[in-house]
């Protein structure tokens, strides 16, 4: 045991500086910059799909079938002559929505559980964290699959399944981040000043774990998008004619010889989106914690 009494102040992570500095640091990291760019483009696509998309994404016979990319139909057309560009654009809206809703649900519930466990300690902590450990060891894929098995295949159920599957992860992460805060003197000082549980959790704990959780959630969006697309790919998620990328990918397998772009385009779209959120999350991490800069 090193004498805590005499140890010099060790590298304590400098707290986050003003927002201005944060964004500047974010765009300065190559990961953060590229990630931000990708996500920004995605958001523009998602919100602007109505204006950007040249055709109705579900209308058959917008053009000839199996038209290769280039020309009037920038990304070509699919087996029903639907415009791929329009489908991809509307798909981005769906994809972002899936990511946001799934992560939103699991993040909210997971954080609440994690913070409560860290704050309450005792048997509540044991029960909550042991059960989330158990669920976590099942991996998201299995939990999501089990949920779909019970609920039946549909996009809503797939999102719900992915959201449920994510809870243990966020609970664990938030719990360990909360434990660090809870053991800090400022936390005890506020308790000693007579602050109640609500104030402790929502005024002190929440703002301090939030940066960590934002990093984790940004990375989590990519996981959720991948998981939901995977379920749709297996046929357990989105149903036709939804322009969901995973479903589009699955449906294009038969046309690999005739129209390989039908498989390539949604695949690239998923990969770039996931990459964008991964990079952005990485950038957030670096920008929020200078100590992590080199990780």
């Amino acid at each position, binding site marked *: 045991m090193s004498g805590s009494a005499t140890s010099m102040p060790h590298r304590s992570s400098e707290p986050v500086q003003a927002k201005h500095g944060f964004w500047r640091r974010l765009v300065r990291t190559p990961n953060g910059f590229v990630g931000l760019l990708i996500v920004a483009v995605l958001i523009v696509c998602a919100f602007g799909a109505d204006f950007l998309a040249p055709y109705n994404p579900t209308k058959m016979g917008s053009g000839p079938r199996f038209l290769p990319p280039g020309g009037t139909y920038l990304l070509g057309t699919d*087996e*029903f002559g639907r415009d791929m560009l329009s489908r991809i654009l509307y798909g981005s809206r769906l994809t972002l929505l899936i990511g946001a809703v799934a992560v939103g649900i699991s993040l909210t519930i997971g954080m609440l559980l994690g913070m409560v466990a860290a704050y309450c300690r005792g048997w509540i902590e044991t029960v909550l964290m042991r059960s989330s450990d158990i669920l976590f060891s099942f991996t998201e894929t299995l939990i999501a699959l089990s949920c779909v098995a019970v609920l039946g295949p549909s996009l809503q159920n797939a999102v719900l399944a992915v959201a449920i599957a994510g809870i243990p992860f966020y609970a664990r992460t938030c719990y360990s981040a909360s434990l660090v805060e809870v053991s800090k003197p400022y936390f005890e000082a506020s308790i000693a000043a007579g602050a109640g549980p609500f104030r402790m959790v929502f005024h002190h704990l929440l703002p301090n774990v939030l940066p960590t959780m934002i990093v984790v959630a940004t990375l989590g969006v990519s996981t959720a998008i991948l998981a939901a697309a995977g379920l749709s790919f297996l*046929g357990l998620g989105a149903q036709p*004619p939804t322009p969901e990328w995973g479903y589009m990918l699955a*449906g294009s397998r*038969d046309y690999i*010889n*005739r129209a390989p772009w039908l498989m390539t385009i949604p695949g690239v779209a998923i990969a770039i989106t996931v990459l964008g959120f991964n990079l952005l999350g990485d950038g957030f991490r670096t920008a929020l914690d200078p100590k992590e800069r080199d990780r």
Partner: protein
Amino acid sequence: MQKFLGKHAICAGILALSLGGSVAGAGAKDIVWARYGDIDSLDPHRATSTLSLQVWSLMYDTLLAVDADGHPVPHVAKSWTSNDTGTEYTFSLNEGVTCHDGTPLDANDVKYTIDTAFDSEKPSLTKGSWGPISSAEVIDPLTVKLTLETPFVALIPFLADSFSSIICDSNEDAAGFGTDTAIGSGPWKLVSWTKGDKIVFEKNPEYKNFGKLAENPGAPYMDGLIITTVPEPQARFAALKTGEVHIAEPPFDDVAAIRESGDLQIMVAENTGQNVFWEFAVHRPPFNDKRARLAVAHATDAAAAINLIYGDLSIPENCPVSRGVFGNDQDFCAEYRPAYDPEKSKELLAELGYSESNPLETALLVWTGGNRQKLGEVFQAQLAEVGIKASIEIMDIGSLNARVRQENENTEGTTGSMDMMTWSWYDPDILYALWHTPGAYRGYTSPELDAILDETRVLTDPEARKAKVQEAFKYLLSNAIHVPLYTPGWEWVFAVRPEVKNFHVAPFVYPIFSDIKIED
């Protein structure tokens, strides 16, 4: 395979060494047939899927067989007689049929099969299709008599189908019958079944063919038959191209290219009995109204849709039972089947109070696989043209059956439910199962229809029965209860490697491997 090994011997060697396995491949004298899925059971009483039926037809025999037009002909039973009322059938069996374990197949085996089908503890899944059989009696080793409670004319075609595969009574003592072992008397003898992966057969050297649609009167020419499971269509196609597999269903979209290149033969089964049709939840709005059903029927252009998805592999069907099945008559049915007429459909919808802002909403349930979800998507678009908003739900056939029944039992709510139902049968008696009270799906029934269907079961005179069957067609079609779309619908296209000679498919999609010779 040979070429591949030569080219990448080192890589393969390392892998084989590191994994301690051997490179598995088909032996020179084996036929390899790849399918998208596996069988459910080796026991003909424990499954209903086409995938299972096709396999049973290879390892078991049936009392009767069908000819190229789908009519019952003698097979194990060389002849049969019935009494006038049609409640007693006596079959005399051919001599010299032996089970795979060497025991002779006789009347006892037939009785054993029927008894197990009606076993009160664990009846066959298809018990209902056997009809009202009250007893099976062994008159002598080569004569068996079946007694029925009421006449049942569909028994004869049923006994020609693999649902009625004769299970050798020596299976009774075998542990793991249906899962690990199965003794039949068919041309192929089970070696092993690796669930989910492959079934391995060797030829039955003792085989005698009396009536099955094979030119070969005896044992198959090839030594073995391996039926493997390859779910991915493109993977099956690749395996066909490399020669790993001899016969497989190709990706539909590549059929035109395959034909053009001539590398592979494309075989399309005829007289499959398969019928794909619209079926509706009729106990609640909107489809409790005939006009809503007709609106759907008029809005669907089956010919255009299947042309888009299957090309010429499938054809539109007008009758509630498909070509090759007793009573089918395209011209007759075309008179009553609601034709493609979107304007008429829109009129009906307007009449019902639907409009662009208030579309008719319905779920559209579709059986997964075989590009049916794509077809569903086309139909969805066609329905959208007239202002019907259908949301597709894709599911396995079992789930579909359960769901359709649930939808029919649910009389609440205003959102419709319709489904692209798929049935294959060798006799119009299927209509009895579907539409006679209470109905397999608890769907549409009426006393009038019940009376017609009752008669189709007991009329022993073919002409009289045909008239009655067509009366049922007329009722079903004009009321848009059973709206036929196309035929065939599943597992009916085969791509065959050029060195494989004499492969053919019997009616009701039973592939025949006995005649096959693979040239070197």
